[in-house]
């Protein structure tokens, strides 16, 4: 079969202020008609740069220095700019990661899709608009006629990404490049979008290059996979073959770092270190420094990509027998029947939305948290999960008394904290700390690590200056950072290291509770595994209690002992982690579990459920009765009329709020 696009030994360089980075160092790939090629790897491995090289849209200072990109009969590597313009958006379409920034906020979506058509086809405005309507209908945008004149901000994230796909498809490209098309979206929406790309590929006979860091996405949606590391393809084969029989240690390490494959009692496998700096790559095998199988030969000579059907670049490939070595067992999870440390009762938080006028009349109320109750016992990890906009972060802020609830109460170890003044809370705050999501925004860029870690001690007046110095040094040891880090600024660290600093700061006051708001969602799987392991180790050491907020149910299942599932401000299900994950009672929990892409092609293709359909309704006007009813496959009239009460589904405390639960409730005990 004649490939649609074939990369032959492609080299790309980017000139920096000091030196030259080589993000693509000899990549050879090909994609055939109607085929999806997945490119997977950690961030900084050259995946995106490979994709951008094909489009010749490299960042300033970047250019192709060798090799060729054969697209039909033309070589895109040497084509002139005018020729390139005729190809971009016409014969090759591209979908970028963030639908927020890839649409022009000042243009209606109809005009934006029509623009591509006007550029490449001899079409009148009316024809272009008609085509825009067709394509937007194709990508499943509901109510297209009305939406043509909408602006991007009037659409939800999932809708926007559909519009971006429509723009890429407007001219029926032969090749579609999707660069992390669903990374910014919720799992339920991710599933819808990936399915859409699959359907469109089959319908239009396109070749698709799917760039992603998520092995689950690759498993379910690509025919062949190329694993990239440090600017090179280290292994490539059909998807099934790669997942059954990974040969390169890097591929295997990526699999082992996934929390979904690991028994929650065992430690996650993490790849030590970081990908090499691409402006000064090591000689020999680039993975040698992080590889458990590396020998002196690996450091001296670089392995080439060899083998038929399933080529890989390694001197010491793994045979089938060598895989699946169990991860080391961690010590038994801490006692789960501790006393209640955190007690949340009927928590409500409404935000008033005011129209922007002189008088600022309140025009509505966003119900961010609506009647949420749960208990967190000392020593456990309470995982709070839900789509973005479900109110989980607001709950997190209420738990650490950063925000005051509209009604309801939060009591920490018997003390009511939600109504206390800031002054009264000052002393109490040392017992509960918040760990932030974005490791780039949570550390003051102008402060050295020393000052960052000393700040909480200084605020709470803990110890003398030399004592504080010693405490800071001890903190660094605990989170596994060298002492040299003290004198550095946050920007000198990688994302994972910054998150370690964030964790050290949260630990500085020796709190009993840490509320971690999406602490690993900005990190690569291998680094995510390091942070999760570290958090567990510290929990055992210091008897910490965690409230772990995340959108990723597989992370939550791994780390949490109790799971709470939130939907649109309501806690819909809560219970012991294994029970909630393996036998959910609420249809939403089940939909959320089904939407997680599994890193196993067989299981992923066998899943029948479509996850959760539709999108999260507005919290400004939440649906009556059960808030999930608009997206629920089981909904009936009663769901619209009555708010479902929390009912028990197991003796171990699994509870859910649903009129049509997936399993039978157990009778309520008296005075439970």
């Amino acid at each position, binding site marked *: 079969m004649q490939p649609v696009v074939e990369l032959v030994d492609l080299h790309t360089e980017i000139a920096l202020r000091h030196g030259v980075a080589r993000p693509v160092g000899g990549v050879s790939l090909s994609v055939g008609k109607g085929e999806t090629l997945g490119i997977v790897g950690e961030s900084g491995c050259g995946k995106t740069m490979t994709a951008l090289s094909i489009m010749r849209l490299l960042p300033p200072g970047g250019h192709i220095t060798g090799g060729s990109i054969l697209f039909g009969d033309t070589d895109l590597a040497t084509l002139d700019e005018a020729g390139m313009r005729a190809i971009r958006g016409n014969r090759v379409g591209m979908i970028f990661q963030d639908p927020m920034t890839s649409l022009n906020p000042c243009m209606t979506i109809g005009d934006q899709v029509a623009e591509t058509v006007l550029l490449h086809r001899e079409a009148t405005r009316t024809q272009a608009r008609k085509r825009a309507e067709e394509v937007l209908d194709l990508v499943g945008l509901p109510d297209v006629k009305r939406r043509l004149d909408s602006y991007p901000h009037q659409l939800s994230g999932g809708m926007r990404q559909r519009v971006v796909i429509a723009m890429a498809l407007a001219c029926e490209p032969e090749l579609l490049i999707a660069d992390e098309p669903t990374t910014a979206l919720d799992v339920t929406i991710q599933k819808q979008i990936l399915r859409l790309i699959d359907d469109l590929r089959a319908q239009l006979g396109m070749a698709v290059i799917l760039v992603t860091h998520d092995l689950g996405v690759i498993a379910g949606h690509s025919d062949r996979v190329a694993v990239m590391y440090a600017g090179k393809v280290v292994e490539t084969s059909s998807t099934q073959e790669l997942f059954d029989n990974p040969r390169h240690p890097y591929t295997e390490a990526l699999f082992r770092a996934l929390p979904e494959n690991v028994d929650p009692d065992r430690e996650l496998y993490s790849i030590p270190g970081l990908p090499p700096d691409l402006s000064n790559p090591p000689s020999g095998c680039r993975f040698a420094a992080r590889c458990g199988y590396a020998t002196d030969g690996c450091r001296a000579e670089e392995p080439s990509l060899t083998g038929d059907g399933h080529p890989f670049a390694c001197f010491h490939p793994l045979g089938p027998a060598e895989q699946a070595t169990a991860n080391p067992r961690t010590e038994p999870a801490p006692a789960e029947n501790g006393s209640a440390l955190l007690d949340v009762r009927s928590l409500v938080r409404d935000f008033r939305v005011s129209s922007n006028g002189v008088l600022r009349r309140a025009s509505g109320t966003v119900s961010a948290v609506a009647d949420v109750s749960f208990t967190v016992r000392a020593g456990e990890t309470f995982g709070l999960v839900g789509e973005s906009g479900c109110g989980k972060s607001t709950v997190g802020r209420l738990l650490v008394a950063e925000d005051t609830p509209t009604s309801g109460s939060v009591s920490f170890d018997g003390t009511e904290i939600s109504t206390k003044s800031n002054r009264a809370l000052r002393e109490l705050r040392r017992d509960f700390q918040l760990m932030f999501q974005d490791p780039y925004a949570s550390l*003051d860029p102008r402060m050295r690590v020393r000052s960052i870690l000393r*700040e909480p001690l200084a605020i709470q007046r803990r110890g003398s200056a030399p004592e504080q110095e010693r405490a800071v040094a001890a903190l660094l040891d605990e989170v596994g950072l060298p002492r040299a880090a003290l004198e550095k600024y946050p920007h000198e660290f990688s994302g994972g290291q910054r998150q370690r600093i964030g964790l050290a700061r949260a630990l500085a006051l020796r709190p009993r509770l840490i509320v971690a708001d999406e602490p690993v969602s900005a990190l690569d799987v291998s680094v995510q595994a390091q942070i999760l392991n570290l958090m567990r180790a510290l929990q055992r050491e210091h008897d910490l209690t965690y409230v772990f907020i995340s959108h990723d149910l597989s992370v939550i299942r791994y780390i949490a002992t109790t799971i709470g599932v939130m939907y649109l401000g309501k806690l819909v299900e809560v219970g012991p982690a294994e029970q909630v994950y393996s036998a959910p009672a609420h249809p939403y929990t089940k939909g959320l579990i089904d939407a997680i892409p599994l890193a196993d092609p067989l299981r992923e293709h066998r899943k029948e459920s479509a996850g959760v359909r539709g999108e999260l309704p507005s919290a400004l006007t939440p649906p009556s009765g059960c808030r999930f009813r608009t997206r629920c496959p089981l909904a009936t009239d009663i769901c619209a009329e009555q708010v479902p009460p929390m009912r028990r589904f197991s003796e171990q405390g699994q509870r859910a709020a649903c009129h049509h639960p997936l399993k039978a409730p157990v009778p309520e005990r008296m005075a439970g």
Partner: protein
Amino acid sequence: MSAIPADDAAVPESRRARGSLWRMLSEFLENRLAAVGLGVVVLFVLFCYLGPLIYHTDQTHIELSEATLAPSLAHPLGTNEVGYDQLGRLMVGGQSSLEVGIAAALLATAFGTLWGAIAGYAGGFVDAAMMRVVDALLAVPALFLLLFLSSIARPNVGLLILVIALISWLGPARLVRGQALTLRTRDYVRSVRLMGGGPIRAVLRHIAPNAIGTVVVNATFQVADAILTVAALSFLGLGIPPPAANWGDMLSNGINYTYDGYWWLIYPPGLAIVLVVVAFNLIGDALRDSFDVRLRGR
């Protein structure tokens, strides 16, 4: 999870501190234009303060017999309309121009930064009230205010600094307030509150330092502006009264003689003002870069 061995924990505190300052300075000097700017300012400071110790002139007694002499060996830049030596006057005048300029800019920037940072961090009613004060002051024409103030008080260097600072802190206040509005939602500012820290710490330790990049550039413009404001005031006859001198005074006096061809009364002070103003702007640009720790060492 084992800790990576601490390799250089024994570096003495003083050496580390100097290391950082040195890095900042070398980053600053790496920028050629900034080095030129700094050089020009240093030269002018030496010229104005050390110059009079070497080149003695009489800047108090009028000598009408020597008025408006063209440059010669005795008077390298000639003399002005009342017989003062122009070169000597340039030195003395520079002193007050530089003093007023730098001091007024520092005062205005410091006060404006604090005002803006507090308003932006506090938000809500406090922000609205504080910023309406700024708006109200902006609505009063600066020149009118200056005329009014200098008519009720006899100007001297100290008063001039205060007055100029009073009209020029509004710019930095608005700039910093805008920055503070975005900074206060940053996680690291949020975290101060969660550690039990108060608003003073948040403003002084986190908001003001992070807003400094924009402010520093503005501050160098303020120096330039202040020198020009003194000149404008003097032009209206409301500057520091003679026999004290400043570059603005000298320029405005010189302009009266434009048609007489006395170029030495116009070009030297004019050039001095332009050079100092440009030099400060160059420094401001480079300072912004070297203040930004993220750009350092790249």
